[in-house]
């Protein structure tokens, strides 16, 4: 359930297909994941999981996989 919400945020923020969500998806690896796209993704994740991300976590959220670790700090298991 949580993973589905996590994936949906990426798909909506970057207009991706599910098959593109993998360990190679990192910041700036696709045109849509730039500075503006990053903030869209962060907003969507905050809304989806009803959390408030710490600024350190916003800046360190550098990949699809890294994001899973970061959400773990908010007791969200993926």
């Amino acid at each position, binding site marked *: 359930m949580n993973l589905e919400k996590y994936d949906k945020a990426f798909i909506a923020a970057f207009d991706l297909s599910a098959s593109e969500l993998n360990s190679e998806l990192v910041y700036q690896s696709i*045109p849509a994941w730039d*500075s503006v796209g990053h903030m869209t993704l962060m907003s969507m994740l905050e809304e989806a999981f009803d959390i*408030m991300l710490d600024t350190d976590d916003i800046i360190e959220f550098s990949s699809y996989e890294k994001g899973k670790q970061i959400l773990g700090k908010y007791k969200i298991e993926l």
Partner: protein
Amino acid sequence: MKIVDAFWEKRNLGVTCVEVTIEESDTVAEVDAVLSALDSQYQVIKIPVGHYDLMATVEKAGFSFIEGSMNVVHHLKNIELQGIQKRLNDSMSYEEMQQEDIVRLYAEIEKGVFVTDRIYLDPAFTKAQAAHRYFNWLSDEVKRGAQLYKVLYKGAPVGFFIFKETTAGGCYPFLSGLYDSVTTPGLGNVVLHKIIEEASRRGMKFISSYISTNNMPVIKVHISEGFTIAQVNYVYIKHRSH
């Protein structure tokens, strides 16, 4: 039509250079006559959008399209951020650079922070020439009174901007960036917003800046921060060996 002898490019790039800015009222015949008389090694032509006849004329004369140059403006109204953008922005500060910060900025520029401008992308020039051109440009503007700022997160510099007031109550932040954009996601907006804050603090009426259509992330950041597009010019170039 404005014709400028860009003599500073001899120092920057090692070539003679002319920059021609075509205006709405210029005719094909007038442009054709000017182009045929140019003899600089590096020739730059700027054409306002919507003039296919002029675009065809410069292409026929051997010029190649290299970028669109967008003049973007912010009138400094409604600059308050909301939500996550505000939290991120509030966690960062900015202050004027000290000598050691300036040394670092110059070093970063020499390494190649800017990779989308028409010099960097032009195979006739080297990456080192592109960086050196920025270095000289920045040095000149600082001598003319531009001020250098660093953007800080938890005390560490993550980005920079150069602030220059213009005579009409506005400012021209001609250079800004992140020291490491790859490892600091989301900070492009913060650096631009700090420029807006500084302009507002000084009581400026507007910010006017130029961005390249080759740099999509920067275009998106400007739009998301409330800039509007005032004008777009197509930029064409030609190299001529002597």
